[in-house]
């Protein structure tokens, strides 16, 4: 299939740098071109092009059978994706904001995640959408949703931090036979500092593999999403103090890349987990117990974490800034660990 590509999904082909958001659009476009079984569903993704314009021009390119504007019915269209996946299609559904995935919690955890176990076969589908705070979106347009699903066997969860990874991981997710929840931080979508030139060749980034975003010997920071960049900023500051922080970008949260985590922890002996999601029941806990199980003897200090506070994401700017983990919170915790 060959469809005239609109300019905004041709940047890589033209050798131009792309934003995080454009990388996602390109991944979707290219997978739809490559594989006619891939199709999209979501609220306002067609005529309107999506709340964040990720699918602008897609309806024209692929038509209404493959770019389906749905009712406001997250459970309905996610369940429909499950049905279509049984029939050999590869649906990619967009949650307008990932906060609105919760009406689909039942069908995702009880139907989609269990399908393979129940002998009903694979569920090659992707649920993607914007997450994260810092946009003054208040409690229902700012959530991170990983911990709602992290506990559910049968799902994969991907949360990229760069355009390169976003494109490669989304392609991998679409080609994966398991259901993948794909989180896109709104703070990354159009961040100018992330623009990068991507390979013109088709590539994927393997699901389940972390990435060392910065090498260091002093301590390990395990993080993902927007917090990768906050952590890198913190690392710069700490480097001035002579502390070399290693930053591990998980990229995939489920399954966790135990090997990458343990390798780094065994090297540095100190672990700080940084996540934007709220504290209690955040992913830091699972990482901590895995390190206990697999690398306890290498620990020179307690495993610590920097996270949002335990509350809904507040609306007011001042509250939200206080709520979110900041660079200085990371610097402080890392310094403490380095000196431990």
């Amino acid at each position, binding site marked *: 299939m060959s469809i005239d590509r609109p300019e905004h999904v041709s940047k890589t082909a033209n050798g131009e740098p792309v934003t995080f958001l454009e990388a996602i659009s390109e991944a979707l476009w290219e997978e739809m071109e490559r594989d006619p079984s891939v199709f999209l569903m979501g609220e306002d993704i067609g005529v309107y092009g999506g709340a964040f314009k990720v699918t602008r021009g897609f309806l024209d390119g692929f038509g209404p059978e493959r770019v389906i504007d749905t009712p406001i019915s997250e459970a309905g269209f996610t369940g429909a994706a499950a049905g279509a996946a*049984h029939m050999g299609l590869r649906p990619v559904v967009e949650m307008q904001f990932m906060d609105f995935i919760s009406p689909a919690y039942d069908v995702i955890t009880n139907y989609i995640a269990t399908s393979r*176990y129940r002998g*009903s076969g694979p569920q090659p589908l992707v649920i993607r959408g914007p997450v994260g705070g810092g946009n003054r979106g208040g409690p229902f347009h700012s959530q991170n949703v990983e911990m709602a699903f992290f506990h559910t066997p049968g799902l994969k969860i991907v949360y990229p931090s760069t355009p390169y990874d976003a494109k490669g991981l989304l392609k991998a997710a679409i080609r994966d036979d398991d259901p993948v929840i794909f989180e896109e931080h709104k703070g990354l979508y159009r961040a100018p500092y992330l623009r990068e030139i991507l390979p013109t060749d088709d590539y994927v980034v393997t699901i389940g593999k972390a990435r060392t975003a910065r090498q260091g010997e002093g301590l390990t920071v395990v993080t993902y999403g927007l917090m990768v960049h906050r952590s890198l900023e913190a690392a710069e500051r700490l480097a001035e103090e002579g502390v070399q922080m290693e930053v591990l970008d998980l990229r995939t949260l489920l399954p966790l890349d135990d090997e990458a985590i343990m390798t780094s922890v065994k090297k540095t002996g100190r672990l700080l987990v940084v996540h934007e999601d709220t504290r209690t029941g955040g992913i830091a806990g699972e990482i901590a117990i895995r390190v206990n199980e697999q690398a306890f003897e290498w620990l020179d200090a307690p495993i610590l974490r920097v996270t949002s506070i335990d509350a809904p994401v507040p609306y007011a700017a001042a509250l939200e800034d206080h709520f979110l983990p900041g660079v200085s919170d990371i610097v402080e915790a890392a310094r403490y660990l380095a000196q431990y």
Partner: protein
Amino acid sequence: MASDLGARAPDPDFDPPAFFTLITRARALRRALAELELSSPEYGDPSSDDLLRRNRREEGVELAVALALRARTDGSGDILIPARDSLAAPLAFGATPLEVFRQAMGRASAPTGGWEGGARWTDLDRGLLAPVSPEGTMIEVASGVGLSLRMQASERIVVVLAGDGSSSGGAWHEGLNFAAVQRVPLLLVVIRSGSPTGAGGRPRHSRLVSFLDKCAGYGIEGDAADGDDLPAIHRATAERANRARSGAGVQLLEIRAPEADAFQTFRSQLRSSGEFEEPELSRIEDDADAELREALETARAEPEAFLTAGAEAQ
């Protein structure tokens, strides 16, 4: 109630002998499972097994519906999503008692390898898609199955069997609405059990009088049939299925609560109508019993399910 089969408009496709064979097998299977105390895996508490269980009178309804559909074994037929505790309809789509016993007894040879019980497994070649327990979910899933069928411009349809109570749930609504908007070839068969007034000790699920009253609100088509009138159910199913096949979008078929024991009624009708002699009927029953006995023994002798290393990650 179909007190006189012959007096109705003839339904050339309704095949009483085939029907009798199936209902005999279905009934024998349910009894065997009940004896195994395996018929109600959903309820750990034995005191609740009289609650919520698909009324056995619904066996007749299930078969009258299923026999009006296109059951194939090569993946070219209709797709049936049975109710969570259906047995009869899956049999009509080619599920075997042996498979059901293996499921119920948690055998390694069971279609789901022990992960699920009952007639809840998927075999798309036979057009069987396994239901999950949470009510309504399967209508959402069916909307996507139907969407795919519509995209393929196939003549196949997807059929969901559901109780009336499930209509109170959000999944029922979202699935039906999405399917309606997308005009998918879906036939939803609502088998009523409770009384609409909440009388008779059954809680009230809705204030509607007939499920047909829901059709306009979704912009879909519908029909209703008496739960004891098996030929009428068969005919109405065939009509609705044809509408769905021909692009008319979602079809709803309401089956009013059956009151008679379909097996007994049907059996005496077959005899009194002179279509069958007693020995013939008894032979069908004996065959079913023999099949079941053998299947049960086979399943019993087979090894239990086991977890292969790394099964966690599948």
